[in-house]
């Protein structure tokens, strides 16, 4: 048995056995190759081409990239996307942690609360955006009606550069807390109670336990949540696309990189240029993920 497990793959299998192996992994491998690997490689190629609506491509070298880096829109969208990530990721994780800590205690109706907090994660982003759009509505929105109770006159939240991005970020945070909460909660429940017992015997309070036991022990989960939140933050599209109309005065100040990609690919039919934008987004996400993986050595503690 031991020798079978340590044998190097491909060194001594009979062809028939190997075929069975390939047969079993084939559905996944073929799926990944056809729907992920091939389009990814084709996308890289397309970014060096002019591609029309009908996928007819002609190689133009670096022209797409030259045009992209020469356009003010790219920098505006990059800035908007970074601002969105900055507004949503830290707060989204912080709030998820608080909620997870509260739900980790043995309160009544705990599973009901867990379900409620998780609901946004399983709701369609388009539906979320539509509901929030009505909440923010300048004329009849619930938010402005609520503010009126305190004598504050509301605004057209989604139509002013000063407020639109914050309004969108609030929706982003609201929809990410549930998912992050579940991951963190799972992490918290994996922490052995013996640590807390030992600390309590030494006289540690609830806060000290949280900062000196929970957070360090939870750091792998926090790291995971951070990575996934950053990636989805850089890919923000649905909420902005649904909530900010083309005639909104905040349109330019909320346009994300994926919006820029979408508009060029599907509204204008510049698929080559859009491919270049998508590669740019890919590189940004790759860089940030790499930085995270290097930096985690400093702060993530594994048991």
């Amino acid at each position, binding site marked *: 048995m031991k020798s079978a497990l340590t044998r190097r793959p491909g060194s001594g299998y009979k062809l028939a056995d190997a075929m069975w192996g390939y047969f079993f992994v084939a559905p996944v491998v073929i799926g990944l190759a056809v729907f992920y690997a091939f389009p990814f490689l084709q996308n890289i190629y397309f970014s060096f081409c002019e591609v029309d609506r009908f996928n007819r491509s002609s190689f133009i070298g670096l022209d797409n990239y030259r045009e992209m880096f020469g356009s003010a829109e790219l920098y505006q969208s990059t800035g908007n996307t970074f601002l969105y990530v900055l507004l949503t990721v830290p707060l989204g994780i912080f709030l998820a942690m608080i909620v997870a800590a509260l739900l980790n205690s043995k309160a009544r109706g705990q599973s009901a609360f867990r379900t409620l907090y998780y609901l946004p994660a399983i709701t369609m982003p388009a539906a979320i955006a539509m509901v929030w759009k009505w909440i923010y509505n300048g004329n009849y929105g619930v938010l402005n009606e609520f503010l009126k109770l305190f004598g504050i006159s509301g605004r057209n939240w989604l139509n002013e550069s000063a407020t639109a991005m914050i309004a969108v970020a609030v929706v982003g945070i609201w929809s990410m807390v549930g998912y992050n909460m579940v991951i963190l909660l799972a992490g918290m429940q994996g922490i052995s109670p013996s640590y807390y017992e030992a600390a309590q015997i030494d006289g540690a309070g609830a806060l000290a336990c949280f900062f000196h036991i929970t957070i360090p022990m939870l750091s792998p989960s926090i790291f995971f949540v951070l990575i996934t939140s950053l990636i989805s933050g850089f890919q923000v599209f649905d909420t902005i696309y649904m909530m900010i109309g083309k005639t909104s005065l905040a349109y330019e100040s909320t346009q994300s990189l994926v919006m820029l990609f979408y508009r060029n690919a599907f509204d204008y039919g510049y698929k080559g240029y859009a491919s270049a934008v998508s590669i740019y987004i890919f590189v940004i996400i790759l860089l940030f993920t790499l930085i995270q993986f290097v930096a985690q050595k400093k702060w993530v503690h594994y*048991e």
Partner: protein
Amino acid sequence: MKRFQHVNAKLLTAALAGTLVMTSACSSSGQAATTTAGTTAAANSSDSSNAGTSAADTTAGNSNATTKLSFMIWDANQQPVMEAMAAAYTKENPDVSIDIQLTAYKGGEYWTKLEAGMAGGNAPDVFWMNTLHVENYVDADMLAPLDDAAKTAGLDLAADFPEALVSMYKINDQMYGIPKDFDTNAVWYNKELFDAKGVAYPEAGWTWDDMVDLAKQLNDPDNGVYGIAAPLDFQTCYYNTVFAAGGWILNDDKTQSGYNDPKTQEGIQIWIDLINEGLSPSLASLTDTSADAMFESGKLAMIWAGSYMTPEYLDNEVIKDKIDLVELPTYDGNEANVINGLGYSVYSGSKNLEAAEAFAAWMGGAEAMKIQGESGVVISARNDAQQYFAASQPSLNLKAYTDKAAIATALPVSKVASEMYDVEANSLKLAYGGEMSLADACAQAAEQSDALLAKMNK
């Protein structure tokens, strides 16, 4: 590392399981389809089309027909009337069957599917086309010229259809779309709001100044009611007044934009004045709550609207019995209206090219256009069939739409039209929102549009 691996492993398992389910589902349905085709060679076309594609698809005609045409449309409201027209055609031509495919327009799904089909050499034979896309498609040789088929079917394009509509589908002197329907603009008004203020309803022959006067009398912002709305809407609103004021948007050669012409700006400024005088909600307010939504909730006394809004207004329980319409007011003594419309186009790579062309041409004939017109959903493009739309709602003055086809100006389009509309909206919204003067906004729009046109013509 343990815990992170743990979480990771769970997710990975879930993801892989998902992929597995997806791929196996795909392969099993593929298998099922092949089996059906393989074992039941005599299966009739309507059965196999229902099994193979979405339930929304329908087939008209004899199941043993030798020529099978596919026909793609995007409007579910028009599917029944398209079916009726296809059934009438297959009755006359028993060797043809027509498979109608419905694909949503929203989110660009229709065009994505059509373009992907053409990229793969396997697109529907006949499909709806609009003016925004036709030039790009002709440029890529995806559409078949229909002049000969039209002649064979007895269509006289110049005499049977509004000139502006024909001009939009005539490219390099060849027709690439048989005109299907058109839309023009008119002013709808809420009679209840007029009666409440004791104001007389507008009548044909009224002027822009009359409209402003009425708006002043009807305006009641304290109760959330406005006299009129000035949304940033080119086709429905300001292009009409730009043309009436003698301005222009795009020259005939499609080499230059007309935003810098003072007459163009005059036709736009009068709308901004409505906002500045408080007769219309602000741009921000109209972006949050559309003019249509306001009109449909009884908060707007008058609204400029395209004929395609008719079914929606008449379906609305709140307003359907309180509204009527009147032709657009004249400006500066001039009457203008923007017309746009759909066409039936044929895929140049169709395997049944001749049959597809014959069907498309037949759809422009008197019989088909009568069936379409009597449905009351759209205005049939044929001059002799426009009356049916107006007749479908005798209590309403729908002639305000149909009467205007002859004097209307074609919606300006080009291969970069979608970009130009965005550039225009991005600049003009600054003027509408009071953040920039109209002259400056127009200068910006002109500069960017002319750059787009230069690139297009390169």
